[in-house]
């Protein structure tokens, strides 16, 4: 069976590959302000939204763009917080779900605002139907749309074009990209068995004569935007391992494609916006190489399984099925774990806590690097930051002022980037240390794995991923507040600094390309990019990985 399963993995990646370029071209057209064919189709609806929303379609400076982004996100998160706090008094609460505590509501509101979807509650018992259908779904549209908008503005700035208008970009991301694809995807999901009903539960009398409560809800529409927007928050506690949230291998395939779609297309969008498609392609290929290395390591580890279980003398079928579902098996579970962490979605179809130590480490590494495609928009911004660092380091080595897209990269930009680079490990390692020292009782698994549990939680928060080693007892005031703050800083700090970089680059006069200019659209540049990502990532996180997953693997005997 294994042979065919690998063809299945290859097929998934091949479909994704074929979609990336056309989708990238489509996204760049969707955000092009010069009137085109798309306006004829989407224009009428958008005009109504602009009019009723009071949106002036003027170009903003980078500061105005940023203020609009921050103000709108703040207003929305406050409304959502209030909904979670009052859900017991609001309508559509047939199961009588209680209001969220202040710290849990804080965590959940930030989590969905920042595209993280870390969940310290369980969907079945923590959210009313109203909260699921209003606050959660609304954030699931707004947060990826915000991320895509920010990345498009960043690309425009680097290309020396006007930054655009935040509200227009936000609306276009929803009307032209997220919503149409979600309608199609939702109907396909439902056809495979995902429920779409306003009933929240049905009682069955089982064959053995006992009562079984079966929870359900409007899951098809939820699932589509969950994956399409790189959100990842589950309707149910078990997320996409739940049969209603992922009934079969077809729905599983579609989920992976949706998670990858925007992140893998943006390099091509970038190439078109800056007028250098080759550079976009080089970045895509570099990331694809890292992705494939991660995937093969994970597949190998999951196939080897757990040596302790293998010693029990059971039927020799390779791999550990603990925490996995039979309908997916080893390959589709391992692939999903790599896709969800590379695209910073955070949906899971297998419990990451139960992955083999190395399989878990791969998921962790994807989030630590945060440049193996990355989430909706913000991933591409992070990748471009690393591209500028690569240019800067190369420039230092040959003793020339580095240039990126025909503009000099100077002290001001590099200071902003250096701070952005440093804040990520700080947001991960410092709170992990505090958690291990002060709150070890919230960690469910003993030994080295316990360290990984805490490390994973903060890495996932800082990468705005949202998956977890879910054994962690994380609905406590400490975990809710600490991960909430980490998610918020990780998301908005880099948006601020990187939009400032774009604004600063935009203000410079372009310098003509000369024979001494480092070409950023060749394989050599791609290699420098990969080396920079890996070296920076390894220097920062290798010690933590040795203490966690690597030590666990070595002691499994």
């Amino acid at each position: 069976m294994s042979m065919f399963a690998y063809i299945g993995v290859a097929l998934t990646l091949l479909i994704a590959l074929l979609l990336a370029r056309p989708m990238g071209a489509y996204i760049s057209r969707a955000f092009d302000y010069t009137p085109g064919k798309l306006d004829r189709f989407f224009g009428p609806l958008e005009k109504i939204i602009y009019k009723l929303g009071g949106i002036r379609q003027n170009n903003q400076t980078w500061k105005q763009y940023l203020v609009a982004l921050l103000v709108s996100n703040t207003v929305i998160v406050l409304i959502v917080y209030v909904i979670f706090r009052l859900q017991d008094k609001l309508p559509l609460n047939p199961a009588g779900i209680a209001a969220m505590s202040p710290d849990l509501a804080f965590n959940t509101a930030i989590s969905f605002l920042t595209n993280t979807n870390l969940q310290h509650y369980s969907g079945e018992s923590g959210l009313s139907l109203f909260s699921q259908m209003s606050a959660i779904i609304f954030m699931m549209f707004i947060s990826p749309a915000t991320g895509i908008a920010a990345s498009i503005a960043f690309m425009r700035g680097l290309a020396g074009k006007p930054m655009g208008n935040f509200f227009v970009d936000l609306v276009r991301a929803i009307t032209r990209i997220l919503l149409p694809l979600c309608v199609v995807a939702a109907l396909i999901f439902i056809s495979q068995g995902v429920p779409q009903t306003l009933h929240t539960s049905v009682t069955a009398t089982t064959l053995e004569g006992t009562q079984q409560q079966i929870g359900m809800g409007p899951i098809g529409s939820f699932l589509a935007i969950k994956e399409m927007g790189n959100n990842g928050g589950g309707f149910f506690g078990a997320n996409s391992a739940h049969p209603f949230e992922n009934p079969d291998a077809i729905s599983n395939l579609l989920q992976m494609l949706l998670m990858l779609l925007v992140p893998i297309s943006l390099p091509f969008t970038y190439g078109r916006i800056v007028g250098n498609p080759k550079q976009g392609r080089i970045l895509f290929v570099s990331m694809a190489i890292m992705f494939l290395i991660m995937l093969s390591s994970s597949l190998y580890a999951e196939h080897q399984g757990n040596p302790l279980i293998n010693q029990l003398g059971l039927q020799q079928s390779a791999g550990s099925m603990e925490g996995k579902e039979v309908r997916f098996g080893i390959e589709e579970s391992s692939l999903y774990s790599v896709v969800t962490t590379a695209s910073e979605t955070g949906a899971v179809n297998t419990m990451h806590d139960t992955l083999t130590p190395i399989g878990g480490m791969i998921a962790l590494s994807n989030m630590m690097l945060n440049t193996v495609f990355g989430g909706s928009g913000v991933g591409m911004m992070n990748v471009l930051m690393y591209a500028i660092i690569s240019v800067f380091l190369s420039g230092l080595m040959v003793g020339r002022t580095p240039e990126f897209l025909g503009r000099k990269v100077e002290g001001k930009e590099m200071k902003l980037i250096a701070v952005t680079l440093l804040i990520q490990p700080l947001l991960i390692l410092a709170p992990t240390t505090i958690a291990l020292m002060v709150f070890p009782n919230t960690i469910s698994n003993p030994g080295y794995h316990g360290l990984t549990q805490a490390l994973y939680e903060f890495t996932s928060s800082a990468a705005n991923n949202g998956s977890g080693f879910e054994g962690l007892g994380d609905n406590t005031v400490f975990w809710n507040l600490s991960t909430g703050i980490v998610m918020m800083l990780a998301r908005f700090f880099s948006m601020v600094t990187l939009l400032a970089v774009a604004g600063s680059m935009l203000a410079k006069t372009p310098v003509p390309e000369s024979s001494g200019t480092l070409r950023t659209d060749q394989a050599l540049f791609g290699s420098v990019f990969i080396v920079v990502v890996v070296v920076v990532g390894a220097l920062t996180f290798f010690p933590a990985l040795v203490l966690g997953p690597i030590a666990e693997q070595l002691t499994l005997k």
Partner: protein
Amino acid sequence: MAIKMVWTTLRTSAILFIICCVIYQLVITGIAQLVMPHQASGSLIYNSKNQVIGSELIGQQFKDPQFFQGRVSSVDYNANGSGSSNLAPSNPALMERMKASIEEWKKQNPDVPVSSLPMDLITNSGSGLDPDISPSAAMAQVPRISKLTGVSQDKLQALITQNTNPPQLGMLGDSAVNVLKLNIGLEQLKAGSSS
């Protein structure tokens, strides 16, 4: 500037809320209930008296050794919750649970050696509601069920083959046997052989 943006945000949010939350979800729900009512309502299975006996997609608890048994569930197949016990590969509790499951297996299936016990029968599923087991996990239970119910091994094996779903498109996912459907088939076989 900021005050004006608050106002723009509130107005834009109201419109987008109506589009993304109200219209999107209700239209999808409407189409789904109209075109695919079976799937949209949870793929429920009814008995002859039109009572719900379960969902095709959701696993059920089978404790009676006369039935085919499913995977280990940390939520006891209570489908108002979901999840796994999240035991790490290095957690001693995982080994203890598995060894207990193996002892239980030996007691219930004295004719089948432990070396024929497939992995998926004694591991916790991700959701706790896994409706499936592997074909070999179903086959391994045939001697026990045949002995307890009197249905011949050949008939049981045929029933399993009949209820095995191959990988989709021949390559996506693993072969799986739906335990609830298998047991419904078993009930019919028993009814057939006794009448």
